[in-house]
């Protein structure tokens, strides 16, 4: 099996789907001639032609809105937002048209929106966000966030095949940092299913995206404790059963998210645990998150707000000792 970077895996998955199904096409800013700001679609316009790799005007609502129209007519558009942050410019079409159409009319919208998200390299407030929580509040949208190269390929394929609008959170800081063996050919990673990144007995860290790497590093050698790390992979729908099973097993939970604190995925899962696994808990449910601030640019400031390995270590240590 070849070893690919996370970025190449996404490219690979997208290419396989475009080869297999003519109705799949890409649209976004600078994805054609330039190959995409992060080069995910490098070489695509040469292989698939201008029709299927569309360099759009600078208009996010147009990207999302036209994708909806194309999708209901039987195509499978894969939109790219140049940075996840710019989804705010296409917010209306996404939450009011794409998300609600099936509920209201029974017409499904098989589209995918790729969102290069996350910080850690001085991108500043408009190039570093993790906005997934906005969309957990818009029923009708699915959201996935792979952390490994293998899942990146499998989930982009699954997102494309799903008949609903799926937001694909691709973490920029994983593009080249995450590498792994990626099966050749086409395959799908199921939506709504988490992955046990490491099994453990004493405490569970539940997380997703780039924080999976942080969590694994932080808990690899933590005073001899056996720490389980659960990679959610899917944020909506998310794997409730896996979460509850892990809580039942270890009784101690640390939730780690790179997104800002309030009302994020961690808050949702903490509430689920409180409601449904109260009697399995041997300590409070703890969150390690970025505080509620825009992401600053200067490296010492950015490092001070994004969860670091030491922050996760400390939270785990405290809970283990509780």
């Amino acid at each position, binding site marked *: 099996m070849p070893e690919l970077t996370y970025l190449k895996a996404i490219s690979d998955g997208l290419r396989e789907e475009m080869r297999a199904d003519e109705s799949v096409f890409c649209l976004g800013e600078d994805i054609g001639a330039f190959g995409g700001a992060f080069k995910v679609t490098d070489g695509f316009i040469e292989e698939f032609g201008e029709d299927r790799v569309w360099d*759009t005007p600078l208009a996010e609502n147009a990207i999302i809105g036209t994708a909806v*129209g194309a999708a209901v007519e*039987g*195509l499978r558009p894969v939109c790219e937002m140049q940075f996840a942050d710019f989804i705010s410019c296409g917010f209306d079409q996404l939450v009011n048209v794409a998300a609600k159409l099936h509920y209201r*009319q029974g017409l499904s919208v098989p589209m995918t929106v790729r969102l290069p998200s996350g910080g850690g390299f001085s991108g500043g407030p408009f190039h570093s966000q993790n906005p997934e929580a906005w969309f957990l509040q818009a029923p009708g949208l699915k959201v996935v966030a792979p952390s490994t190269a293998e899942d990146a390929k499998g989930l982009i394929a699954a997102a494309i095949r799903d*008949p609903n609008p799926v937001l694909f959170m691709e973490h920029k800081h994983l593009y080249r940092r995450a590498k792994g063996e990626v099966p050749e050919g086409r395959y799908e990673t199921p939506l709504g299913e988490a992955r046990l990144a490491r099994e453990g007995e004493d405490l569970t860290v539940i997380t997703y995206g780039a924080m999976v790497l942080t969590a694994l590093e932080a808990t690899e050698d933590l005073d001899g404790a056996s720490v389980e790390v659960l990679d959610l992979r899917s944020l909506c729908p998310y794997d409730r059963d896996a979460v509850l099973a892990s809580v039942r097993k270890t009784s101690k939970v640390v939730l780690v998210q790179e997104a800002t604190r309030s009302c994020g995925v961690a808050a949702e899962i903490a509430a689920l645990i409180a409601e449904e696994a109260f009697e399995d808990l041997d300590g409070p449910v703890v969150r390690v998150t970025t505080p509620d601030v825009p992401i600053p640019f200067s490296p010492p400031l950015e490092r001070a707000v994004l969860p670091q390995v030491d922050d996760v270590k400390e939270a785990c240590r405290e809970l283990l000792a509780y």
Partner: protein
Amino acid sequence: MLLMRATEERALSLYRQGKVPGSFYDGRGQEATAVGPAFALGPRDRACILHRDLGAHFIRGVTPGRVLAQMMGRAGGVTGGKDANMHFADQRLGCVQMVSMLPDMALVACGLAIAFQMRREPRVAHTWFGDGATANGQWHEAMNVAGVRQLPVVFVLENNQWAYSTPNEREFAVDPMERAAGYGFPGVTVDGNDVEAVFEASAEACERARSGGGPTLIEAETMRMHGHGAHDDMSYVPKRMFEEWEARDPIRRYEERLREDGVDVEEIRTSVKQELDRETEWALAQPPPEPTAATEGVFGEADPELGDGEAPWSRWEGEDA
């Protein structure tokens, strides 16, 4: 047009009886701008129909009974109670349902057009919007995308003089029809209360789109004779304006023309009334939706299926790519 007006009158009456929850919107006075363009569509064309264009739904094949049931929020209505008043569409007839944010559907229509363009099909995507919507950023994005790609889309701008209580002069500095040139495609103005004129302009625009000539903006000048919704008494409109436009009522004008051609207009009126009475009875008998339906249908299990509409004029029936 008669059916549209009659249905809307019936619906308004039901609304006043408390049978229609929420708000009520109609297109009284705009029947020609609804019917003319829809009539020019072929069965495989697609439409995003707006809230004052009920006649377009009838042309595609939706029955008045389902419309009334829809407004009353019954299970047999087009959306089964999921959405309100004119926020409905039947995908089996090739229509995509409007949202409240205007003019979002203009972009969706562009998306439909992109599909036709990519597949090299002689099909047209069609939508309506009002004068107010042209102030919105998404209108600009839609016009721009349509022009840049020369999409097979027809935009009908129903300039009914008022966006709720806001008149044209507060809405834009330049007549939208002139702005079309700025986006790279033709704009035409027609008398929106002359159904044949609207139809001719639409048919020409569809022809242009089908043959790869790109989009058209048709500005149909008309007047909204009722309030923005049933809750609006239109006190901000000068009385004189009502009188002027009443004299140009689209239905009366067309009836005159039909009579000149020897058509029995009274017979048509009678059959419309009978149909409406039957349909109303059916609609009133429809049960309310099951409460369990409230949490159903958030996600789809299968790919979408947009069917073909009835397209009575059907100039393009049978023609394919």
